[in-house]
Structures are given as structure tokens and as C-alpha cells.
């Protein structure tokens, strides 16, 4: 069993409810994400929010990212100085949309520069940081290209780098595995794991309905579902994969416990 412990709270969702067109979409959502500490490793957090299509995942995604205000409750994020929790604002989280949207009028390099300029920690060495990331994510050759000249995989990587350059600890990903073929899927999975190991507070929140792939790289799973007779979706189950010894395992999908966990999740949906 891997040794780990949990530290400070990085994100806390308290009694969140969202009403749209007089219809309750999300109801009493409560969960928190804590810093995972592993001796000798810069271990970030990978949390997955799983739910069936149309359950309100995208609404929760938008609310978490600060793009949409909840009707009730609040989302609090870690403030580094002083160490405290404060309400989330748009821009606090790095957001990677499902279609990897980028400004069509900016080249990859210009788009990345826009993000880098937002990061005070990079002041004066933005260009250097872009080149480093581009090399790391195999995008050096496409820096002068426009988004429409990129493949889907390249667009996804540009979106990820853009949000990393912005310097946010949180990275929200909306259906990052949808529509990817098997080879690209492996690459994306490795890429996300690499990002999660880049900083202790780096927290990936993956909203997806691809249960197997998402759970395989997560340390915690929250299942969004409905309860009988009550309107609106809520977190119906949370699973600590670390506790079950299923986190950070390269071949976790081959383990018996993994299969049982997937069955358990499916039963909750």
C-alpha cells in the first residue's frame, strides 16, 4: 500500500444548488478536495466527477469554473497568502472546454503568450516558458499555426498548456477523453498524469462519462446522480481510490478491485 496523507483543503463545495428555468438542476452538492501528500513526490490531485449524460455535469463544470453563479451555496478555493479559503471567481481555475476552444485569430504562440502574460510568476520569461512547454508537449513545430490548422489532439494540448501557463493550480477538464482513438487516449492519459505530478497543489478535476479511463487516473471519484423522488442531481457517492489501493497504479485496470469499483460506480448511475 502506498503511503500518503491528506493535508489542507484546496477546494470546498458547500450546499451548492443550481436552478435553471425554474427547474432544479443541481441540489445540495457538498464535497471537498484536500492536498494529498506523498513522501518524496510532488503529488497533485486528480478528482473525477462522473455521471450519466444530461445529469448536470456541464452545469457543475461551469459553476466550479466560476463561469456560472450558483443559486445557493458556494465554492471556496485555496488562497495561498494568507492560507485561507475564498469564493471562486472566473479565472481562478484553468478550464479546458470539451471542444478545446481557442481564439481563431491568434496563432498558438500568441494564444500561449496571452495566457503567460496573465501569470505574474512568469514575468519577463514568458517566451522561454512557452518554448519549454511546447517542447515538453510536442508542440514546438506548430507554434506559428492557427487553431484551425491543428489536429484535435494538438488543440487539446494547446488548451492544457495555455491554462498551465496562466498559472492556476486547478485544471478543470470537460470530457477530455471523448472522441479520442485508443492511441491518442493513452497519450492524453499520460499527459494528464504528467500535469498532476508537476506541482503539489496541481489539482485536476475531470468531468466525464468515460468511467474506466477517468477512474484509472483518479485518486478520488465523485458520482453525480439523482435520488428517487427528489428533483436535481447531487453527489450520490464518493469513492476514495487511495484507500482502496487503486490510485497511482500504472496497470490498475488489470486489478480485480478496479473491476469491482467500476461495477460499483455503474450501479450508482
Amino acid at each position, binding site marked *: 500500500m502506498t503511503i500518503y496523507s491528506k493535508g489542507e483543503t484546496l477546494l470546498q463545495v458547500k450546499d451548492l444548488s443550481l436552478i435553471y428555468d425554474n427547474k432544479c438542476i443541481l441540489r445540495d452538492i457538498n464535497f471537498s478536495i484536500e492536498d494529498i501528500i506523498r513522501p518524496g513526490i510532488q503529488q497533485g490531485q486528480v478528482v473525477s466527477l462522473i455521471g450519466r449524460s444530461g445529469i448536470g455535469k456541464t452545469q457543475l463544470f461551469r459553476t466550479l469554473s466560476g463561469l456560472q453563479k450558483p443559486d445557493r451555496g458556494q465554492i471556496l478555493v485555496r488562497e495561498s497568502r494568507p492560507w485561507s479559503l475564498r469564493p471562486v471567481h472566473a479565472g481562478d481555475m484553468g478550464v479546458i472546454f470539451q471542444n478545446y476552444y481557442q481564439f481563431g485569430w491568434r496563432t498558438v504562440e500568441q494564444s500561449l503568450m496571452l495566457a503567460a502574460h496573465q501569470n505574474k510568476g512568469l514575468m519577463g520569461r514568458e517566451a522561454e516558458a512557452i518554448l519549454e512547454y511546447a517542447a515538453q508537449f510536442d508542440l514546438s513545430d506548430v507554434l506559428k499555426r492557427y487553431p*484551425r490548422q491543428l489536429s484535435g489532439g494538438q488543440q487539446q494540448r494547446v488548451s492544457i498548456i495555455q491554462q498551465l501557463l496562466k498559472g492556476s493550480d486547478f485544471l478543470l477538464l470537460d470530457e477530455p477523453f471523448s472522441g479520442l482513438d485508443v492511441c491518442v487516449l493513452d497519450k492524453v492519459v499520460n499527459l494528464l498524469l504528467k500535469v498532476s505530478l508537476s506541482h503539489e497543489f496541481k489539482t485536476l478535476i475531470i468531468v466525464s462519462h468515460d468511467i474506466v479511463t477517468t477512474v484509472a487516473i483518479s485518486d478520488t471519484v465523485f458520482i453525480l446522480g439523482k435520488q428517487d423522488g427528489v428533483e436535481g442531481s447531487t453527489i450520490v457517492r464518493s469513492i476514495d481510490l487511495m484507500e482502496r489501493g487503486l490510485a497511482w497504479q500504472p496497470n490498475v485496470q488489470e486489478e480485480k478491485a478496479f473491476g469491482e469499483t467500476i461495477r460499483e460506480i455503474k450501479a450508482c448511475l
Partner: protein
Amino acid sequence: MFRPFEKISRTTVLIMVSIQVIVLLSIWQSFPAGLIPSPLRIGEALGGLLASSLLWDNVLVSLLLTLKALFFSVVITLLFSYLSVVPFFRPFAQFIVKCRYLTLTGLIFIFTLLTRDGSQLKLSLLVFGIVPFFTTSFMSVIVHTNAQEFELCQTLGYGRWQSLYEVIIVGKADQVFEIVRQNFAIAWMMITMVEGLSMSEGGVGTLLIKYNKYNDLVHVMALQAVIFGLGLFFDHLLGRLRHWLFPYVKL
């Protein structure tokens, strides 16, 4: 060539259009001589006009006035359109949009009182005529902006003015150019009308009125051909310029 959605090469298009034009001109030429001049007579008059400095001097006057009017129109349009995203200024832009239902003829006297000379009168009438159409087109571009463009700005931590700059000013610059291209025709069409109001400075409009006055239909048609050709040339030029300035639009 005769099937719906069939794709044909540029060369085929060129040959096809050339044949169509030749056939149409031949049919026209074969009509019995009457009030409407034949293509050959128009062609002769056109040759004479092209060789004379009279045409080019007048074309230059009209072009300079059109470009001046376009410049002022673009500046006014952009100012009010950009500001239209600020609620306080939106009614101003919306009023300009509605102004396209006003007729210029009814306002000529007011403009004559407000301007100092014929040159100013022509320019102000042109600008007044163009701005509502420019603003209508650009406001439509702004209204139909993809919400994700603003959301990306928000996720990057941009403020509202920064988002306005990135999404509307920088992001829509190519479309401003396209609107100018599309509406150049309006300016070019109106020029002949306003030039008739103050004929001392000349211009193709003045020339047209003179030929019309003496029922010189051959020269009227030849001049129309010049105006048409120049319009097409500028349309093509602005299109090329747009592709050169904003290479991403052709991707």
C-alpha cells in the same frame, strides 16, 4: 456542370462565364437599333472615354471622396459599435441602426444648412448614408459573437475591457474589413447621387448627369460600365487585402 452542387475548376468557370457573356452580348447586339444603344457602340464610346483625361480626372475626384467617406464612416461605426457593448451607449448605436430607414433626399436641405460648402455637403451626406449600414452589419457581428470567446477570456482571468479588446476589437478586425468590402458598393452607388448636388468639383456622378441631360445614352452606358468595372476591381482588391492582413480567414 448542369448537376446541383457540382464542383468545377477555375478554368472551366472562366471559359463558361466568357461564353455566357459573349452569348448575351451577341443577343443584345442582334436587337434592332432603337433607343437602347448596341454593345458595339457602347464599346466604342468606352474606348474613347478610357483614352480621355476627362474620365480619369472625374474618377479620381469620385474615388477620393468615396475613400474619405469610407474612412470617416468606419471610424464612426467602430466607435459606436465598440461602445454598444456598454449599456449606456447601446441606445446610440441602436438609433444609428434605425437611421437606415431615413431617406437622404428629405435631409439634403438640413445638411446644406449644417455644412459650409459643396464638398462638405457631399461628404457628410455620404457618411450619413453609409454609417447606418456599416453599423447594422457590425452590430450583427457583435451580437452573434460566440459566447465561448468571452468565456475563454474569463478563464484566462481577463477583465471586461480586456475581453472587449481581445474578442471584439482584435477578434473581429477581419470582419470589419469584410463589412467595408461588402458596403463599398453602397458608397460607390451613392457617390453618383451626391455628386449631382454640387457639380463644380466634378466626379463620375456629375459626368453621368451631364450625359443624361443631353440624352447621350451611349456615353451613359459606357460610364456605367466604368463604374461597374471599378466597383468590381475594388471589391477584389479589398478581398485580397483582407486575406493578406488576416491570413486565418481563408483557413
